[in-house]
């Protein structure tokens, strides 16, 4: 039997963090807004300023 530690399974985890940019109308995204009441970008769906916002993407820290 042989065992080469270089042959161990390598597992890699990467990620993209999707962050909500503070809405100028709300100063910050209003806390506690239910997800179902958010627009597809994650912002408060009743707010026109929120609707114009898009999240930023950043890499997950290792």
């Amino acid at each position, binding site marked *: 039997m042989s065992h080469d530690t*270089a*042959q*161990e*399974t*390598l*597992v*890699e*985890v*990467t*990620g*993209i*963090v*999707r*962050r*909500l940019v503070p809405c100028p109308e709300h100063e910050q*995204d209003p*806390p*506690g*807004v239910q*997800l179902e009441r*958010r627009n597809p970008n*994650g*912002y408060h769906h009743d707010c026109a300023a929120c609707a114009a916002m898009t*999240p930023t993407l950043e890499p*997950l*820290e*290792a």
Partner: protein
Amino acid sequence: MAAAAFIINAGKQITAARHVGSTPSQPEPKFLQWGVGTSTALVTDTGLQSTTGTTEARTTGSISNVTGAQTGSKVQVTGTITALAALTIAEVVLMDTVGTGSPPTGGNCWAHASHGSTTLAIGESIAYTITADFTP
């Protein structure tokens, strides 16, 4: 906390069981769940250190074989989890069932990884890509 990722010891039986049977009884380990535990992941772990305490369901990831050193020699799972509360996420697992309850429990863990503590507001998310390379 340092980044670390393993197919945990208990998860190796999942890998083995997926080989057996024309329709393996072992489900795919494609269900992502995150947690708030900040210790470095170990191969001897059995799952998350700490669940978030909120109601994020396990995400059913997209699982596929991708090419590494050999054609199709990697297993890759991708999926996104969205925060239902303000959280600091530092670990993720791949489970073999969607689980039950809030936060979900049940099933067996295949892979466990720790990563940098990531503070999220409600509605923010992490799109994970977890890749196991069987022939590095």
